[in-house]
């Protein structure tokens, strides 16, 4: 068997991230690491070392799905890993991210007010005021935290649902970060190896 490395325990980080958001929403900013690091690695190194070794979420799904046997282990529908769905979900996700940044801008510009709530599945508003003491930081900094945490929690919940229904890492087939980093790697390595053996 493979020997264990420090990065094999990053699933703890994935858990910790969501726990911290229950106590202080400002910790949501730390999630930017999970946004920027995969892209940085793909651009600089031209590989998916993040997905392959460093993604705490992927590790968590693996532990829960395989280790705790919470996954049915059935094959996911083909469309879930089809190019049109992956790109479509990426566009949808980026649009929602852009919308969240715009809401942050509105608050920063004084055209919107801070909403101390987490929005699940881009629809359901859950009051989350206990995790933020008003006035601690600028309103826009807090607004971004609530928006970003919403995005992270929503995607984690989707990932958990498909983990249970299908295979542990089914989320990875349409994870927006995975789609982007694979796209970057394919562009960077165009003209390289084509065959598997």
């Amino acid at each position, binding site marked *: *068997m*493979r020997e264990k490395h420090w990065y094999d325990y990053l699933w703890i980080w994935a858990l910790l991230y969501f726990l911290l958001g229950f106590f202080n929403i400002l910790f949501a900013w730390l999630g930017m690491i999970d946004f920027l690091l995969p892209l940085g690695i*793909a651009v600089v190194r*031209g*590989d*998916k*070392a993040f*997905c*392959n*070794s460093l993604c705490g979420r*992927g590790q968590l799904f*693996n532990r829960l799905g*395989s280790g705790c046997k919470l996954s049915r*282990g059935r*094959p*996911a529908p*083909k469309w879930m*890993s089809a190019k049109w769905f*992956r790109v479509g979900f990426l566009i949808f996700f980026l649009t929602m991210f852009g919308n969240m940044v715009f809401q942050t801008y509105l608050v920063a510009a004084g055209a919107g007010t801070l909403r101390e709530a987490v929005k699940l599945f881009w629809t359901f508003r859950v009051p989350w005021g206990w995790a933020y003491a008003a006035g601690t930081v600028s309103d826009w900094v807090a607004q971004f935290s609530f928006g970003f945490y919403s995005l992270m929690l929503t995607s984690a919940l989707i990932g958990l649902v498909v983990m249970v229904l*299908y*295979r*542990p*890492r*089914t*989320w*990875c*087939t349409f994870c927006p970060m*995975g*789609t982007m*980093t*694979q796209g*970057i*790697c*394919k562009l*960077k*390595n165009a003209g*390289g*190896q*084509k065959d*598997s*053996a």
Partner: protein
Amino acid sequence: MVSKRYAEPDQQVCVACGACEKICPKGAVSVWRGCWSVVDLELCVGCGKCAKICPAGCIRMKERVLA
């Protein structure tokens, strides 16, 4: 003694997540430069663990044709 079967990932469907690389007991599977997974046919023992874990279901187990 070579195994009767070997794993063959479909590069068009592979999402390069690395689940196969992680589970392979022989270190025969790896993700090639973040693009798709590749199998070292010399090392593959045809256990099928990678095919079972692959979230995209893109790994097929094939019969080895021995010369």
